[in-house]
Structures are given as structure tokens and as C-alpha cells.
């Protein structure tokens, strides 16, 4: 493996990592503040991507489609909150699981009914459809760099909001001890609703940004949702910092594993066996990482204050 190839794969890993962070950050706060399991969170990722395709087809311009898709996705999140999710804030986890699983079934099959099961694609916006040279004769697409940049900006903004604003203070307090916060007179329900809808917006944003990079199809949000779960388990529920570090870790381990596992096994296995073992190991690497973290620190790497 050359160092240039390694650099490209590290960037790819970072790009996957920031997308995972956008999805996991909202989810981890929803867990943290109110112990709420929202399986439908991943569906917002899918909805964002599909809406981006829809608005791109009608407007012909990615940067018009992006805000429109985001607004509509937030509208949908508010609708889901008002009609279904709201009734399960105080329910047990099994009921939350069933209700949000039901929402996934509805959203996935609606997407299938409206847009069909054939994967859609979104072109890379013209403005960013270029590559910039890294070093040597290697270059990297500008669009992917922009995704990384947007992810890092959102991460910084979230960190500021959670650590340095009054709202963030309430969110952290809610994650540490929601009961006490409610007893102090804070409207935890409203706080929670804000976090839920803000988190949904981030998931939709991730879907829109990922649109030009992956196949857009029904159920695409489910795989991502489970990856976000792995991120949250590793990072520790309720912690933005944990979600950020775990997301980058998962992104890098997954991408580098897929690129280099086969080469790695060739070092001490026959090529045929390595070709067999490499991809299999690469595909389960992040789950092995999760198992390792669970064995060493069951509460995750950076559990929110008050959760040990």
C-alpha cells in the first residue's frame, strides 16, 4: 500500500465518519435527554436524500434542492413528532421500538411506492465537480472535501451550542438527570422536542449530502441507523464528544478495513484464503470494535455526566 492511497482512504474514512456523526449526534442526544429510542431517525436520512432528488429534478440546481429538501424533511419530522412520537416519550422502550419500527415500515414502503425500488442517483453539483491535487499525481474530489468540511463545521457548532449556551446546558442537564431537571421547573418535553427535530434535521442533511455519493433506495436509512447505533454504543449515549470521536473512529476503521484487510491477510495467508477472509473480516470489523469497547468500558468511551 502506498502512502498516497492511504491518504485517500483516510479522507474517505473521515467523510464517512462525519456523515455518521451528523446522524448519530441527534440520536445520541435524544437517548441522552429522554431515554427515547427512535428507530425512525434513519428514515429521515432516506427522506432527505429522496427529497433532494425530487427538488433537484424540478429545479435542476443542487443548492436550491438542498434547503428545500431540508425544510420539507424538518416538516415531516414535526408531523411525525406531533402524530406519533409524542405519545411515546414516557413509554417503555418496547413500545417506543414498536412504534418507531412501524414508522420505518410506513416510510420505507411509501418511498418504494412513490419512487420505486430502483436506486436513484443525484449528480455531484457542477460547482464542486472537480478534483484537487493532494500530493504526487493523486487528487481528491472537491465535493467529498466539502462534505468533510460541512461535517466539521456542524460538529463545532454543536459543540458550542451544547457546551456554551443556556440551551446546551439544559440538554446536558437533561442527559445527566432528566427527573431533577423537570423538578426544577424546566419543560423537559419541549426541550426534548427541540432536540428531536434538530436531530432529524441533521439526519436529513446527512442524507442530502450523501445523495451524490451513494445509491438512493428504500431502506437506505436502516443500514446507516445501525451504524449510528454502533457509534453511540462506542461513544457513550448522550455525549456529543463521544459521538464525534466514535463516528470518526468507525468511519476510519470501516473504510481502511475494507481497503486493506485483504492485503493484510495476504501477509500470512495464501492469496485465495486471503481473498475469502479479507472482505468477511472487513465487514465485521466495526462490530468487533464495538464488542471490544463494551468489554472494556460498557458505558462507552465518553459517557455523559451522571451516566456511568
Amino acid at each position, binding site marked *: 500500500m502506498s502512502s498516497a492511497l492511504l491518504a485517500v482512504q483516510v479522507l474517505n474514512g473521515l467523510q464517512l465518519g462525519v456523515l455518521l456523526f451528523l446522524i448519530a449526534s441527534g440520536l445520541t442526544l435524544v*437517548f441522552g435527554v*429522554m*431515554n427515547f*429510542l427512535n428507530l425512525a431517525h434513519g428514515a429521515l436520512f432516506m427522506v432527505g436524500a429522496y427529497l433532494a432528488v425530487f427538488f433537484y429534478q424540478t429545479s435542476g440546481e443542487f443548492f436550491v434542492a438542498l434547503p428545500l429538501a431540508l425544510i420539507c424533511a424538518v416538516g415531516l419530522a414535526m408531523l411525525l413528532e406531533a402524530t*406519533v412520537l409524542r*405519545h*411515546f416519550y*414516557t*413509554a*417503555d*422502550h*418496547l*413500545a*417506543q*421500538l*414498536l*412504534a418507531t*419500527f*412501524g*414508522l*420505518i*415500515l*410506513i416510510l*420505507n*414502503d*411509501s418511498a*418504494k*411506492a412513490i419512487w420505486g425500488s430502483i436506486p436513484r442517483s443525484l449528480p455531484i453539483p457542477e460547482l464542486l465537480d472537480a478534483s484537487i491535487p493532494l500530493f504526487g499525481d493523486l487528487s481528491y474530489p472537491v465535493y467529498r472535501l466539502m462534505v468533510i468540511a460541512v461535517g466539521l463545521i456542524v460538529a463545532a457548532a454543536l459543540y458550542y451550542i451544547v457546551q456554551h449556551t443556556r440551551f446546551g446546558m439544559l440538554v446536558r442537564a437533561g442527559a445527566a*438527570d*432528566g*427527573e431533577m431537571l*423537570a423538578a426544577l421547573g424546566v419543560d423537559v418535553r419541549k426541550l426534548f422536542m427541540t432536540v428531536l427535530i434538530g436531530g432529524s434535521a441533521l439526519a436529513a442533511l446527512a442524507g442530502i449530502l450523501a445523495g451524490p455519493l451513494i445509491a438512493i433506495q428504500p431502506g437506505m436509512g*436502516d443500514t446507516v441507523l*445501525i451504524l449510528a*447505533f*454502533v457509534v*453511540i*454504543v462506542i461513544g457513550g*449515549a448522550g455525549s456529543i464528544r463521544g459521538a464525534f470521536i466514535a463516528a470518526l473512529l468507525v468511519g476510519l476503521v470501516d473504510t481502511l478495513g475494507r481497503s486493506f484487510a485483504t492485503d493484510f491477510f495476504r501477509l500470512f495467508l495464501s492469496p485465495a484464503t486471503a481473498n*475469502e477472509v479479507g*472482505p*468477511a473480516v*472487513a*465487514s*465485521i470489523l466495526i*462490530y*468487533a470494535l*464495538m*464488542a471490544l469497547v*463494551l*468489554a472494556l468500558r*460498557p*458505558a462507552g468511551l465518553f459517557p455523559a455526566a451522571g*451516566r456511568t
Partner: protein
Amino acid sequence: MMRAMARYAVAAVVFWGLAAIPLVADFFGQSYLVSLATRIVIFALAAVTLDFLLGIGGLVSLGHAAFIGIGAYVVAVFSLYGVSELLIVLPAAVIASGLFALATGALALRTRGINFIMITLAFAQMLYFGTTSFSALGGDDGFTLPMRSSVLGIRALDSATGLFWISFTLLAFTYLLFQVLALSSFGRALGALKQNSDRMEALGVDRWQIQLRAYVISGGVCAIAGVLLANLTGFVSPSYIAWQRSGDLIIMSVVGGQGTIIGAIAGAAGFLGLEEYLSQYFEYWRLVLGPIAIVIALLVAKPLRFSRRHG
């Protein structure tokens, strides 16, 4: 006492009802009903194992399809070596699945509540992706089995009714096993841990050990469903482990009444019957299932506000 009597009456109705299907199918010449009934029996078996864990133990596993997958893949692996004897394949599947449950459960049970749900889901997904890249058994495309299993060399599973009756017998044994377990001191301790694990631990009960034992028994026995499913379809693929399957199993085991064991069998029958009926007319039948799941959720919802200890 009355409730127990009522439950046994329901059990009798459910089992006699299932047993009647092949006879009815034969009478009306609707042979596809036998394969539907076999599917119901197989998923009922899986739902029973989940109901013990979820309904009695309060352990919400969203990765139970993994155990079905392990059972199915054990059949496939043995077929590569020309072994199709059910008396070898079935115990092997149960042991393999139990070991997977032991390894993943030991880690997952270090956490509780939402984390447990996410971790069981993640480990099932690990197995899903592991099987998609398992190229010796067809990877993504799945693997067609060369033949159905035999019992003591007799090809008893080759006929649709033979497979049904063997599945039915195994379901009956599974039902009895979990019914006995639920009433045993182990089952009582498991149920008490669901209600108040702090108090139980104060009484000196080892939460981790009892819940892990339940998880291993549930996961191990669930592999029987996988062995039977592979025999029914003649085919093994990663789709058996897809996480939606785990969600379906939860619906089946919850809808008939949590922790009633017999309810899981009725739930599986209702779920698969509805699927069979709706998917004839309507490609997007899950659009109907979704609202049903939400309604079930509203019915089973118990307030659990802010209780960190149980969460």
C-alpha cells in the same frame, strides 16, 4: 388459577387449530396451506423463544433473527460436507447458536435498556454482513440446499406434511420447555429481575448470570426455527438475518400478550396470515403493518418516565 386454566384452553385451541390445517388443506385440495402452516409453526417457535426473553425477562432483543440465520446456515454448512441428518444438524445448530448468544449476550448484558436493544441489533447486523461476504455459501445471493434433512436416514421431511408434523412436534416441545422454564424458580427470578432488578440484586441474585442464561437458552432453541426454515425453503440467504425480521418477530411475540408464551404462537399465526392475505392484493402491505405496529405500541405502552435505573 382461572387465568392458568384459560391459558391452557387457549393453548389447546391454538395447537388443535394448527394441527387441523393440513387435514383441511388436504380436504379442499389447497396444498399451499400446508406450507403456510409450516411457516407459521416455524416462526411461532422463534417467537416463543423471544417471548420468554422479552415478555418474561423484559430483555428486548432486536437481533433475534440472527439465531434463525445461524440455524439455517448450520444446515448449509453441513450440506457442504454431505451431512443432512437432522439428529446431527439440529443439536449442532442449537449449540452454535447458543455459543453466539453466550458471546454476544455476555457483552450486551453489561448494559441495559436502550443500549441492550442497540447492541443485540448490531451483533445481528454483524452476522448479516458476515454472511453476505461468506462466498463459500453464495454470499449475498444465498445458497440452494442440495436436499432436505433426513431423520435417522429416513427422508421424513421430503413431503410437505412430513415437514409440517416434525415442525409441529418441535414447536410443541419448545412450548412445553418454555412453559416449564417460566414456572421454574429460574423463570421466576428472571421475571422478578424485569420488575425490579435493584431489589433482586440486593437479595443476592446475580442479574447478569440469570439473564445471560435466559439469553443463551432463548437464542439456542431459536436456531431450531432456522433449521426448519432452511428445510422448508430449500434455500439459505442473509435475508433471514435482515433486521426487519427481528422487528417482525417482536411484533409476533408482543401482539398475543407478552410473556404468555402461547400468545406468541397466536401472534405468529396472525402476523403471517395477515401477510399472506394482504400481499396477495397489495404490494406495499407493510403500509398496513406499520400503523398496526403503532397501535400495538400504544396498547402495550407502560409509562416509564425518567427511570434511569430501569433504562
